[in-house]
């Protein structure tokens, strides 16, 4: 009985292995893409939000304009 269950389990796992591999590959890609998200958020914190903490309105306006010109040009 136990051997039969083990064999069934083995067959079940083998049948579903390709799908598990595809799922794992997709998860790995998602995790790799987090690198870009981390970099984007770190960049905007360092370039804009830290100076914003000074609450200098004129400086903030200048920073937004400069960040757009230097970083977000098409």
């Amino acid at each position, binding site marked *: 009985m136990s051997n039969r269950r083990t064999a069934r389990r083995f067959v079940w796992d083998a049948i579903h292995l390709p799908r598990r591999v595809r799922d794992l590959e997709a998860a*790995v*890609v998602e*995790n*790799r*893409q*987090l*690198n*870009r*998200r*981390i*970099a*984007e*958020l*770190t*960049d*905007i914190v360092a370039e*804009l939000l830290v100076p914003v903490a000074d609450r200098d309105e004129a400086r903030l306006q200048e920073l*937004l304009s400069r*960040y*757009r*010109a*230097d*970083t*977000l*040009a*098409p």
Partner: protein
Amino acid sequence: MPHATVTDAGVVVPWTARGPVAVSFDGRYVWSFAARRDGRRTTGGWRVPWPDVLQPRLSGTTRVRLERGGATLFDSAVAFGGRPEPLVLHDRHGHPLAVDKMGHFTRVFSETDDDVRRRVAESTRKALVDLREAGYDAHLSYGCLLGAVRDGRMIGHDSDADVAYLSPHGSPADVIRESFAMERALRRRGWKVVRMSGADLKLLHPLPDGRDVHIDVFAGFHVGDTFYLLGSRSGRLPRAALTPTGTVTLEGVELPAPARPEEVLEFLYGADWRAPDPSFRSVDPAQGVHRLDGWFRGFRTDAIAWNELYRGRRAEIPSAPSAFARWADELLPPGAGIAEIGCGNGRDVTWFFERGRPVRAFDFSGAAVRQTRRRLERAAGAIDDVGALALNDSRSALVAGAELARTPTPMSLYARGLVGCLDDEALDHLWLLASMSLRRGGVLLLEFPATGTAEPSVPARLHRRIDPSGIVAGIRRRGGLVEQVEVGPGQDFFDRHDPRVARVVARWTTQESR
């Protein structure tokens, strides 16, 4: 020597023609291929189709010559499309064009005179000097390094200049952050910069002959024992092969080079790097390509296609306001401001402006931004309210959201045909932008081709139909309140009939976005 044949569809070369074959028209290099890699085995030999970029331009008569290793496989006049007039492959400045190793149709160095070659080398030197002064360990790389080490000359079939730098970082996130800082540093030094991925940039430098030289700047870095180099190379290469830099001479110009150039060239091109091969294409390790794709790529893939659409099919894209613009204009109070996300050629935002509304406009495509600027300038004189917005880049969405949250009066957001161009990440950034900019008032107005019909969405491959329920769910996830959803017949990108078009109206209250 068995002979080859040339037709409108492609070339057929003998089975024995296994090495690289160079193709010239009227004595000028236009393309090269490797029959086994690019062709299909048929009873008559290897059948190799013309490259996609070349095929549409093959109309007229030219003398075609096929050469392999000094032997001529074909040399005769060919009338493509049965046309007797001369076949001309020139750019708008009259310079001959060829297919480069990336499959692009461009000027290559073999058709560039010595003075221009030297200017390209000098531009490359300027880029390397600026990069090194800004603190990056940059050196000549790829085809330029190969040409410099082989004979001090640029490679005839190359079209770009290539430089690389060794990043000190071992985490891809830090490499990307470093690349963002590099982009700013280069712009402040006056360079025109185009971001190609999270870790490579393209610098454009004008030449006196009217074209721009393109200088690719690739990041290289180690993760553990593996060295990765953008484009797609990966493998073993010690730091000592790259740094400290030495020098090589290219077209008479002295340039920084890797510490051990021969070792780097073997990493880039394999052990046979000394033998010229115009049809060379790398076989990069699949695992390395997958890693580099996941870390750095996949978020600007359609930019070139959109630019080509706005430039190449300009006459087909309507310039009068869309039916959705008139509908939105009736819905909003007179004089209320509108920011258009994905403004295209500026047809709708210009009309809103002419109706007396304050406007802002954003687009992903540089060509669209320029066309909208010109259209608004014609309507109003100088105007500075058109900006770039790459919705896959969270920085771009956050900055646009911050700008729109600070306009003198609240602006509604208007997006026609936008959401069908966006992936899940960009869509979520659009809802984030809306949640930031609409908390003070205004509404989000969307129109898009909806699912529920077999009719394809246009422009093909750039746009897909969207299920309105997914849009409603996304807006709600970011704290929006959907006020109206309607689906019915409407108009597509080119103002042709579309059986199913959805319109959505949503607003954000003062509550925190989730």
